[in-house]
């Protein structure tokens, strides 16, 4: 859910260049952390999770304006370092299909990669004493909440889009609702609506729905894997 469908030309050049540099540095660290022999053996797992993420990201969920990405599940199964590589691969392929621009690959890789790492850490470290079901749901929910908040902050800071959604009674007085009443320096706020709610409430509702769907999906899949192939859920020293 933290994968942002940012088209090309929206993010300022400095932001996406820096994001690319940071993503490549993280990629280099990830490749170095995973030992060479282990990496070669784990390539099938990496490729399998990349293909699955690519498949699920293209599946619409009916009326919901969100889609699954299985990033946390990838972190749990292949670990944080190879999970980051998988996310980078998926984002490159998605950029060729209009799911986020090529310039947004860096920032999407950083955000979804962070989701992978956080999901792995919550599941295999912080919440280890918990029961499996609650561990899966909580790890996914927390990872998504943190990375989605970060994604929204990044988009808001870089593009100034938050002025659109903030048009309640205590909104910024420089925001006008109608073009006719907007002065030269006023931003026109078009209400963002979802299920009859508007503005930040609509964003919040979409975020909660996406979080719930991803957490339940991860929980369901982990529950199945626990019965059929529990060895996939064991931590393999973080690689």
């Amino acid at each position: 859910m933290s994968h942002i469908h940012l088209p090309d030309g929206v993010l300022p050049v400095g932001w996406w260049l820096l994001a690319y540099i940071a993503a490549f540095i993280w990629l280099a660290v990830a490749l170095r952390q995973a030992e060479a022999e282990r990496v070669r053996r784990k390539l099938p797992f990496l490729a399998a999770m990349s293909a699955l993420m690519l498949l699920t990201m293209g599946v619409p969920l009916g009326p919901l304006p969100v889609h699954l990405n299985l990033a946390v599940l990838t972190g749990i199964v292949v670990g944080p370092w190879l999970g980051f590589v998988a996310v980078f691969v998926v984002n490159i392929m998605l950029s060729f299909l209009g799911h986020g621009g090529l310039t947004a690959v860096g920032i999407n890789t950083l955000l979804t990669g962070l989701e992978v790492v956080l999901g792995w850490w919550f599941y295999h470290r912080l919440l280890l004493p918990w029961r499996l079901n609650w561990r899966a749901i909580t790890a996914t929910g927390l990872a998504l909440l943190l990375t989605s908040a970060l994604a929204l902050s990044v988009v808001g800071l870089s593009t100034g889009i938050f002025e659109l959604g903030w048009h309640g009674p205590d909104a910024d007085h420089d925001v006008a609702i109608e073009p006719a009443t907007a002065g030269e320096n006023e931003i026109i706020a078009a209400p963002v609506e979802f299920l009859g709610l508007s503005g930040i409430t609509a964003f919040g509702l979409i975020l909660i729905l996406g979080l719930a769907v991803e957490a339940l999906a991860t929980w369901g899949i982990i529950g199945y894997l626990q019965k059929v192939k529990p060895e996939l859920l064991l931590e393999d020293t973080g690689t």
Partner: protein
Amino acid sequence: MSSRLARIDHLAVSQCSFLHALPAKPKLIATLILLAGIVATNNLRQGMMLSCLLLGLLFFSRLPLWLFGIAFYPAFFSLPFALVKLSVSPAAATAVICKAVSAALLLTLLLASTPFPQLFGAGAKLLPNLVTDALFFSYRLFFIILESLERLLLSLRQRGAFARSNFAWSNWVTLHALGYLMVNTLAVSQRLDQNYRLRGYQTSVYLGATSAAWRVADLALVAALLVVVGGVLRFG
């Protein structure tokens, strides 16, 4: 998206045009030059000029017009950002959407005119070996699991797994089906790896004996594009 990717992949290998005949490396460089031009446009006129160039490429390469429809998906996501620019002028807002559509069309043209081994091979110099190998494996696996998914869904429907009257049960079945697909995909991936190793794969995918030398025509294409993009940005 899955069927779209399959159709685009088919176009890349089955179609014949001047765009398909170009080698992958010059095409990739040309794409990056055009993308830089699109990102650097700062008014609607410049954006429209580059869009017309891309539409011309789409038309003259005899690629189907539905490819242009793919470009409207990012247009939808650029709407909020276009609304922010509406306070400047409607033209500025339209320019944002034009940028998003042009960039998406450009990348779609690249994907639809270049078979994936050539495309990933051209990018192999810029990426680590493991990432290039992962791109190859993942792309191949995607189509394999697409078939598995279609067979799985058919099998589940035939056994009455998706009942309209029982929403919770249907969702439970769907999640377990995804889990089954994941286990199946891992098994297929390991077999794919074993097959590749039998054919000599060890540390990196062999990209074939493609010529690394650039032709005069390739250099001329890149130079021409630099002039065109520069001209559009300077005089547009």
